[in-house]
């Protein structure tokens, strides 16, 4: 099974974010970056499928030069090779960035395309499904389990309120993977060593001949959310803060 897994580099989850001067994006200067968490699970699923059924895992990422760190980590975990589309995605809508990814995936003709169900930065939760439409593939989202079967795959989809559903489809297909589908592996020392010798193909939008979509949505400005609820914050020493909170819970909220 040849699998392309699309991964994205995003600011680390516990980052303190500052709004950038342009009000269009955050201040990127002193942030640390990591792989988008659901994409890490998509990569893990790709590696496990390869271990079961053989084949190849190609890691695909679009982003500026710093995304090469995330790509190297994917190679160290066991991806066979990688494609890095060196473009800045921050000003792109999800259709434009998906067009870049789709152009690269088309050249690979994979059996399966995997990606995380959403990104921790923009959070549209759309890239996977857009890719499926652009590539003309059947898809399923929020997938918790993938099994190969005669004529294709059978996946377990998560629905709301603890419900699930199995869906069958032929290959090639595209799946968006839910976090927690399995336990993530760590890169081994051997894996990190090997990663240095693996192929990373660097491409630009021009190389891919990908046309920019005419924007159908425009991001006006970003800002910190206004508080809708006034939170009483206790910031003193732990013992003092705990005592103040208990006082409030007893005599103001009257829940104790």
């Amino acid at each position, binding site marked *: 099974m040849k699998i392309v897994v699309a991964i994205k580099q995003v*600011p680390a*989850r*516990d980052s*303190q*974010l500052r709004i950038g001067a342009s009000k269009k994006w955050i201040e990127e200067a002193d942030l640390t970056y990591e792989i988008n968490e659901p994409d890490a699970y998509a990569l893990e699923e790709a590696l496990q499928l390869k271990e079961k059924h053989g084949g190849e895992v190609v890691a695909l990422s679009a982003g500026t030069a710093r995304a090469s760190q995330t790509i190297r980590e994917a190679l160290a975990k066991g991806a066979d090779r990688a494609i890095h589309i060196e473009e800045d995605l921050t000003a792109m809508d999800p*259709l434009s960035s*998906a067009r870049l990814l789709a152009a690269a995936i088309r050249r690979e003709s994979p059996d399966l395309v995997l990606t995380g169900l959403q990104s*921790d*930065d923009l*959070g549209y939760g*759309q*890239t*996977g*499904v*857009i890719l499926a*439409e652009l590539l003309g593939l*059947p*898809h*399923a*989202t*929020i997938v918790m389990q993938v099994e190969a079967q005669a004529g294709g795959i059978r996946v377990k*989809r*998560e*629905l*709301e*309120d*603890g*419900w*699930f*559903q199995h*869906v*069958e*489809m032929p290959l090639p297909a595209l799946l968006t993977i839910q*976090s*927690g589908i399995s336990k993530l592996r760590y890169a081994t020392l051997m894996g990190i060593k090997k990663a240095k010798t693996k192929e990373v193909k660097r491409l630009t939008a021009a190389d891919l001949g990908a046309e920019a*979509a*005419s924007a*159908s*949505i*425009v991001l*006006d*400005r970003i*800002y*910190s*959310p206004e508080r809708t609820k006034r*939170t*009483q*914050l*206790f*910031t003193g020493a*732990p*013992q003092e*803060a*705990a005592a103040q*909170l*208990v006082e*409030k*819970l007893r005599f103001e909220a009257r*829940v*104790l």
Partner: protein
Amino acid sequence: MSVLAILEQRPGQDGKPAWNRMSFETLAAAQQIAGELATQASAAVVGRDLAGLAGELAGNQLAAVYAVEHELLRSYTPDGYVAALRQLLEKVKPLVVLFPHSYQVRDFLPKLATSLGKVAVSDAISHRLEGGQIVFVRQLFQGKVNVDVRFAGDAPHFASLQAGAYRADRAAPGSAPVETFTPEISAGDIRTRPLELFRESERGVDLTAAEMIVSVGRGIKEAENIPIVEKLAKALGAELAASRPICDAGWLPMERQVGSSGQTVAPKLYVAVGISGAIQHLVGMKGSRTVVAINKDPNAPIFEVADYGIVGDLFQVLPELTAAIQKVK
């Protein structure tokens, strides 16, 4: 150029189509936005045997109710729904099309929009009108940052609305004609085969009945640290719950998960320990009467919904809080 709300159903306990509750939030939003744009709202529901549901919709202030019916729409598939909705859009020609931001909509809306060369504004939390144009607000970085989004280009414009962003009880009653719309779909259009819906097991823990809940998130760092949260729950006489990553890691059983994929709770007191407050968690607990958040990051979105907060290291705060509660209980 009207506002069209696409509502959601799936088979209920008796096998008949039943509403996803979020549908009426979308209906109310469509009426409100149509009013502001001085146009009319209409609503559609997709499936099979929809007479009952369409009849319910007819009791609302809408220009039209469309029951989009086909045998191949009995079970949801992205291919079937997109084919049906594209045909409905050609007929109705709406300006704006609104959806609940449900798991089903997440599965097909980007496909529908892409097939028309459009991008949907997903998971919007509110809107306003600026110079006669709709501006939707959505969240970035797991709710830490907001963004204003405008539509560009030709109609239709698509948006999905976050659970709880609009109030279902604001839906205006009235009377609307029901029209059955039968799209042309053939079995060959549908590439995926959906099987029965199921639940993993009967739930052993019913968090929805709990008066008090202490819930733990990533901030707890390791499974070995869970007992300090358990102690707090015990001192309060509260049920122990968790955000998704804790259950994914197997540190607490899945049946104790609060959030969009777990249980939706509304206790008297909800104490969120080391939970940053991703929207998937917030939708499961924001109806709680009193919310307490304990987190080291003062900008964590959980403080948006908290009545009381302690900004600090939970490993220092929790033992003190447990002791203080034991003193007064």
